[in-house]
């Protein structure tokens, strides 16, 4: 086997599993550290009380914000919301459900059961939309009055970490299916995403749920949701 193929073999096998483990353990660590780091007294939120309100509050806070039209926040910025959801749909669905990934994971773990696989055409469209979304986000960071003064290196980093596996994977599909070199680039980028995610703002993959749950509880227990059974009118 050439060294190129050895690299491909490692990065789609053991290497991928290591990256995945770092990703999963890193995300788990974030969750534990977040929950363990809350303090009812310092936060002034009685987390342990009023579960009849706080549980619906948590669900409303998370799930309303997972739907593009369900909160005043999303509705206040329709174009941003549209781009955001298009990008995130692909970001979540493609890595999890594209056929190649499902097969590799099954093979690496030595198991037969796997996640369902997307039709190729659907994956192609999602990936293209995601890439367009990433590019638009990049341009927006440069020109939008909402973002020019706010954007930092950390924001560029995660745009790159997200865009690179998508661009390289998409190129394999549409331009160079037989290119081992391009596949290697894709594997490197994909594994880099997994390895670095817990250490960058990509941690929002889990921390979104944590901070939304927390604010949902806060609004349910003490603030505007407390007269509505915990469900604030997001």
């Amino acid at each position, binding site marked *: 086997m050439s060294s190129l193929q050895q690299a491909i073999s490692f990065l789609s096998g053991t290497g991928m599993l290591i990256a995945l483990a770092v990703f999963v353990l890193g995300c788990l660590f974030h969750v534990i*550290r*977040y*929950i*363990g*780091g*809350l*303090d*009812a*007294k*310092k*936060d*002034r*939120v*009685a987390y*342990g*009380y*009023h579960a009849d309100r706080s549980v619906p509050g948590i669900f409303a*806070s998370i799930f309303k*914000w997972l739907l593009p039209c369900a909160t*005043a*926040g*999303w509705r*206040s*910025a329709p174009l*941003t919301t549209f781009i*955001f959801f298009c990008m995130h749909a692909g970001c979540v669905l493609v890595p999890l459900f594209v056929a190649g990934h499902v097969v590799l994971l099954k093979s690496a773990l030595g198991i037969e059961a796997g996640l369902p696989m997307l039709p190729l055409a659907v994956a192609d469209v999602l990936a293209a939309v995601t890439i367009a979304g990433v590019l638009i986000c990049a341009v927006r*960071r440069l020109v*939008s*009055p*909402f*973002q*020019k*003064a*706010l*954007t*930092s290196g950390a*924001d560029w980093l995660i745009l790159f970490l997200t865009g690179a596996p998508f661009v390289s994977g998409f190129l394999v599909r549409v331009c160079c299916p037989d290119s081992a070199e391009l596949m290697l680039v894709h594997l490197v980028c994909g594994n880099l995403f997994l390895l670095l995610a817990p250490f960058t*703002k990509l*941690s*929002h993959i889990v*921390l*979104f749920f*944590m*901070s*939304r749950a*927390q*604010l*949902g509880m*806060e609004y349910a*227990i*003490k*603030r*505007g*949701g*407390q*007269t*509505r059974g915990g469900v*604030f*009118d*997001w």
Partner: protein
Amino acid sequence: MEGNLCNSRPIDTEERLKELMADKGGAEYYKQMESLDVDPAKVMDIINSSMTSKIKTWLNNCAHCGMCARACHFWLTSDKDATQIPSYKIQSTLGEIIRRKGHVDAKFMMDAMDTAWGKCTCCNRCGVYCPLGIDTGVMMSYFRGVLFKLGFIPWEMKIGSGMHRVYHAQMDVTEEDFVDTCDWMAEESAEEWPGLTIPVDKENADIMYILNAREVKHYPNDIAETAILFHIAGENWTVPSSGWENTSLTMFAGDWEGCKMNTQRIYDAIKRLNPKSVVGTECGHAHRATVVEGPYWCGQESGDPPVPFYHYVEWVAHALREGKLKIDPAKKLKGPVTLQDSCNYVRNHGLGKYTREIMSYICEDFRDMTPSGDHNFCCGGGGGLNGIGRYRQWRNVSLKNKLDQIQNTGADLVVAPCHNCWDAIRDMFEVYEIKTIKWSFLKPLLISMVEIPDNIEHVTE
């Protein structure tokens, strides 16, 4: 260098309070602030001992998307000034201090103070519009607490905190002054309403009423109006001689210790007099400080006050619903009326449904603002901003947002059951020369339209 006027110590003596108040506008105070030392270790110690994963995550994970900008009345009236984006405001102050591990100078801290009190009213609207649920209003309030401990707070806030600590009220109104004023108002009102009393320190009453020192000092009629309405409704009520003052400039100032003292005084009065419930006056931040945040400062683990605690609008809605107060249909408000949603008890306690219930009884042409309720905008003067001279011009610009909202309803009356909202609306009409719109608290409106039951004697000249 800690000055005699500007330093990191809270004001807890009348002497120091008077000394600071004598420095008109805080001229010398702010001058001394320029030389106030910043000890990085002290800064980081304050932050590290008080910051939980909630705020840490808010700071670290902000995606810098800028959606909070559209939610903020400061940004909306600023011609897209990036320094008014809520995320920018907190990241460039608290976020920056943490990034620099406390190595900042007095100039930086004074700019941070200007942001924390001059560019934010802690209305929490930005938090409602953030996809990640980052409440920059809560963070700014937290940051005010940090600044308070270091001495970088506006002159009027330092005085306000001192007032509460020295006089147990937001103004120099002593307990004697208060009881005297109650007696005076009861005496005057009893001429028109025979049998009306303002019971002081009555035990086991249904309602213990607490209020704003401003009412005692500047318009004691408010106390008379309260008494008349309780009298008509047949309520068994009282006021406490100690723990009667509900407000909390300490909360605006970030003086958490002072906040605890205020709330504990009220909770002690509850213990002493054993009322079934407490009703507070028409004040937004008082409700937030005493009912929403107060339980936590006073060690109530459940986050609930020791007895049911109502904002005035909750009592009014209840009284109208139960028929304790009846509105004479002929005296209902006929013209177009709109309603101000006070952030501290609407967005932050969900009481907007009660104010709207009241509107359905008292007016025929109610026009809600856009947006309204939990999503309504801050009046522009909350969080202590109304009272801070240093930021008056900034505040006046941001008032334009609420003014536009009011004018867009076509109403000629704004009902504003909140002292700060009431002040902000008064000021915006003055600054922008609006003479055709009136504004009012609830009490005077109710007095003018309530039916007098047969068992209540009313002597009219």
